[in-house]
């Protein structure tokens, strides 16, 4: 009998989403346990004492798997079904490289740029975001998804760019990733969020907007304080 799979997650987290998409694409049934990250459960802290973050995958009684992309690779290796990562070693290396680039060079500067007050620091982040998103835009030329015709590892590794950019820009009142400048990225975001397997584990847009709107002041204060300190 297959061992039970549980996923500890939290609302709106793109990292949790990556793990959910991987499980769904492999056809693995799972129980989702939602955390309140402002009041972390004993279950989460016991299974992820090092990072104390979600997602955490529990497969039977083996120790937990933590870190979203490691969970994706684990799901790819532990379960039968269509491969999530490419087969060719070079393509796999590319698939593993780009998520780090996206997080450090796109998501982070984007987050800083939308929430920071006007000034030199903000301009720097805007420039970096645009320059680095251009590299992603180039990778999407002529392709529906980063992985080709169907959703693959790099698409859900980049998922934050697909479903969070819009709600964040709306709440912050900014427009950094315009359709005119980044047509392929916008098309990709639309294609990704409409995919059947993906949309089943995406929070509705209105809920995301409401979530960010509720935290807006706190986020702006924290981001501006971070820049003052450095």
């Amino acid at each position, binding site marked *: 009998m297959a061992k039970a799979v549980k996923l500890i997650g939290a609302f709106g987290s793109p990292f949790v989403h990556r793990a959910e998409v991987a499980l769904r694409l492999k056809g693995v049934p799972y129980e989702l346990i939602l955390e309140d990250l402002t009041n972390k459960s004993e279950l989460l802290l016991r299974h992820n004492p*090092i*990072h104390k973050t979600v997602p955490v995958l529990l*497969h039977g009684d*083996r*120790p937990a*798997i*933590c*870190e979203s992309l*490691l*969970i994706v*690779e*684990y799901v790819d*290796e*532990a379960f039968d079904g269509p491969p999530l990562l490419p087969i060719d*070693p*070079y393509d*796999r*290396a590319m698939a*593993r*490289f*780009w998520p*780090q*680039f996206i997080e450090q*060079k796109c998501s982070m500067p984007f987050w800083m740029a939308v929430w920071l007050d006007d000034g030199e620091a903000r301009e720097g982040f805007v420039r970096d975001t645009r320059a*680095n998103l251009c*590299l992603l835009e180039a990778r999407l030329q002529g392709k529906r998804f980063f992985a080709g015709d169907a959703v693959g590892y790099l698409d859900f590794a980049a998922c934050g760019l697909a479903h969070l950019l819009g709600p964040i820009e709306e709440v912050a009142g900014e427009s950094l990733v315009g359709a005119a400048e980044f047509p392929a990225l916008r098309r990709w975001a639309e294609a990704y969020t409409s995919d059947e397997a993906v949309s089943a584990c995406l929070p509705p847009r209105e809920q995301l907007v409401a979530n960010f709107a509720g935290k807006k002041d706190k986020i702006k204060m924290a981001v501006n304080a971070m820049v003052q300190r450095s």
Partner: protein
Amino acid sequence: MAAAGAEASCGGEDEGLTLLGFWSSPYVLRVRFVLNLKGIPYKYVEEELFGDGTKSALLLASNPAHGGKVPVLLHHGRPVAESLVIAEYVDEAFPDRRPRLLPSASDPHERAAARFWAACVDQKLVPAWAPVFCGRTLEERVKAAGELVAVLEMFEGVLAGGRTEFFGGESAGLVDVALGGFIWWLRASEAMCGVKTIDPARTPLVAAWAERFSALDGVREMAPDMPTLLEYHQWTRARFGLPFLPLHQPPL
């Protein structure tokens, strides 16, 4: 230290590999360990990353997403960047070359554990190390070194649980290589601020592992010269406008 742009051939017949590196970079060392331990031949190009020298044409032509950083491994001209991505690539592209860096495909759980701890070196050890290197005062550096020891205690726990010679088991694996790149920088902490970060009294298993790993064929030859490493660190500090702090004891 090889002159910038200098090439060196390492090993036998050509596998079409070129590694762009920098002599003291722990990330570059990781890749050299992997290639050397597996006996895979490659050309090594020492990049001039600072000063008046220019980066090699190869590094500049490498994908702009790589940000001009080393290591970059070129395999028949195709670049791979990020040391742990490169390590897994080499492991998968040359599956017959031992040692394998990850446990077998029949144990996805152990493979996930190895990847987790390798990533932990970058997520926990590196941020703890930075203030030891860059601390503005001796007190700052000493405090940071104490926190770094706490991170190594985590890795002590991993070795204690595994009860093996290496993190990878009977032979070196991904975690050994990931942590191994930092051994000489960690040893340099004593001269920087008087604190032994690899301390046999606090982390006896890690200390024994460091001796064992750094003595391996393929690793030993890569050891940076300690006085040169310390001199380079003083130069880097000066370059970033950090206050000069004398070495705590004469370099070994």
